[in-house]
């Protein structure tokens, strides 16, 4: 069993940034990549939605809204 020590986007507090290291393979991984979520890219957590687990994140020059289950697959430094 592997100890889960890697951080993902959900661990970022609003205002914090980090660099994406890898993505956990999933049916929507190629879509995340097409949206600019790529290794070596900087991601910044902007805010969480009022209701529920939806996150507003900012990449180099664009913004995305993602759900918790999607955010969990984005591994950061």
């Amino acid at each position: 069993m592997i100890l889960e020590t890697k951080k993902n986007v959900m661990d970022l507090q609003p205002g914090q940034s980090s660099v994406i290291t890898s993505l956990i393979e999933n049916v929507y991984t190629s879509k995340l990549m097409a949206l600019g979520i790529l290794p070596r890219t900087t991601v910044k957590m902007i805010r969480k939605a009022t209701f529920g687990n939806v996150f507003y994140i900012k990449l180099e020059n664009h913004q995305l809204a993602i759900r918790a289950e999607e955010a969990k697959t984005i591994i950061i430094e």
Partner: protein
Amino acid sequence: MIEHNRKPVVALLGNPNSGKSSLFNYLTGLRQKVSNFPGVTVDKKIGYLKNENMEVSIIDFPGTYSTFPNSLDERIVTNTLVNINDSNYPDLVVYVADATQLERHLLFATQVHDLGIPMIFLLNMVDIIEKDKTQINVDEISAFLGCKVLPVSVREHKNVAFVKNAIFEALSADISSPVVPLFKLDKVEAEVAKEVSEIVPSRTDYHAKLIAHHYQWLDFLTHDQKIKIENVASKFKFEDLRTQIRETMSRFDLHENLLKKAINRNTPVKATLTDKIDNLVTHKIVGPILFFVIMLFVFQAIFTWASYPMDWIENAFALSGEWVSHILGDNWFSDLMVNGIIAGLGGIIVFVPQIAILFLLITILEESGYMSRVVFMFDSIMQKFGMNGRSVVSLISSGACAIPAIMATRTISDKKERLITILVSPFISCSARLPIYAVLIGFVVPDTRIGIFQAQGLALMGLYLLGVFGVLIVSFILKLILKSESTSYLMLELPDYKKPIWKNVLLTVKKKVEAFVVGAGKIIMAISILLWFLASFGPGDAMQQAEENAIELSEANNWDEAETENHIASSKLESSYIGHMGKWIEPAIKPLGYDWKIGIALLTSFAAREVFVGTMATIYSIGSESDELTIRQKMAAEKWPGTTLNVYNRATSLSLLVFYVFAMQCMSTLAVVRSETLSWKWPVIQFVFMGAMAYFGALFVYQLFS
């Protein structure tokens, strides 16, 4: 369409928010048509362009991120691009990319390139690039993609005039030179591509590889072909998912190198205007409040502003009806023209103001980029009920009218979420229910005050809340029982805020109005004529008998002309087919506390709920134009035959109110559900379950209070 003589097809492709549709509107203007791609409600926008030598069709495809689709819209694009026999298969692709987002927008372009389809690459929004003092080397990109690259700004009409010429030039150019693929297939992929291309004719190896990825849902493959491809895939252990990711990654690596050479960015990292707006607009507390203020405005607009043009339309149709009946005289044909066709036409056109105003406002919100923020804010709540963040807008609009609200669900790309929104929207009390509520509420609640509130006002609010309760319960159940075709995901771009382009907004409004008048209009007209027939004719000479009896009665009582007319109308309606049907269903509705007169009104108000009030007036011989007060007085005096019991006691009135909250008493909504789901299955299901809820809800309250 004639296949063998087809015009060259030019496909507009690009990511969402690339400005593709604005370019389409610029190129084709009013010469465009909207239809559906076969079998699905995904808009297929087609326009025409011609010069002295030829005419071409331009198709605006849905915005797409890559050839690995995640939505129905994107599947259509891939399905078309890998089927060389598809009637929409392009001879030329005009690819629109946002120059400020080139890193991402190049991905799909390199895939289209590898499919071997000739392409023109447009670098859109160069005005913004120039303001940022960023430099892009067009020649580098052109060399990389091996095609013509044009820097343009569709918004500022910069260089777009050259696009048309470039299209005709590219179409007449010789394109025999083979494509050198940008992405190199690995050994397994190459083997798979080779064998697949023997099963399905493919232009390039990449084309064959895509078929191997998607063969399960590509609709043009035969069962036999699918089995063969499946065998090839398992023979070489072709891993769909892992291969997709590898390809995407290596394509990004490829053009990352290109962009290092081609772009000289000069954008200092600072808070943009979009960031500042979003600090407020998507703020945890301010965001939702601001949304409800905007929605209050939208609601007010379709509820109040639309009522003026709606009154004009109703008056105009009433006047032309009078005029026609004056010219044609008093006969069945004249009656058909006036009460069947003209009334039916009026019943269609009367919805146009609401549809136009709602889409004007919604398109402005959509074009500016605000709608994506709404989805961000409400995604989580709406997910619990199987819906989408965008559903909130439809549900609120339903408070005015379900018809534009249902038409507005097109932007929800998930099929299940969209369907649930369509099915539950009519539970929200619309403006047509208000006249019924107004007439009946007085029988249920006295005109007094409870604290600072008016009791009747509170009852009215209760009826609205009952509708909301219907939405929540039914959507929750539908979420559990409806199958989902794909995994649900959000992954939504929140584009930079932009000023809406008015041409886009107005063209959308025009298309929506046309879609309603043409799509749903036919059905509304047919039902309207059917209802007219049922109310104007009766079995045998029953109608004539009724008229003669009424005249006799009138002479015996010395009624004046108006009163005689009212009595004739009343007894004719009673002896018409619909009158007989009303009596026939009486045993079924008696447990709800209704007599056959209410039965008739339930049937006629299928045309539109507010018809209930007019029918009541006709039945009680007070003329269908009477005001609500007169009708209420008449209804209050009504007794069950042979007794002193009021028909409109508290229980019956409450039962009727509950019935109208839940029942799908609106043929126009059903017609729109039909045209938005492309089948009769869903409107029928909706009619049945809403009817069942109405019946049993009414039964329950009647038995409880009587």
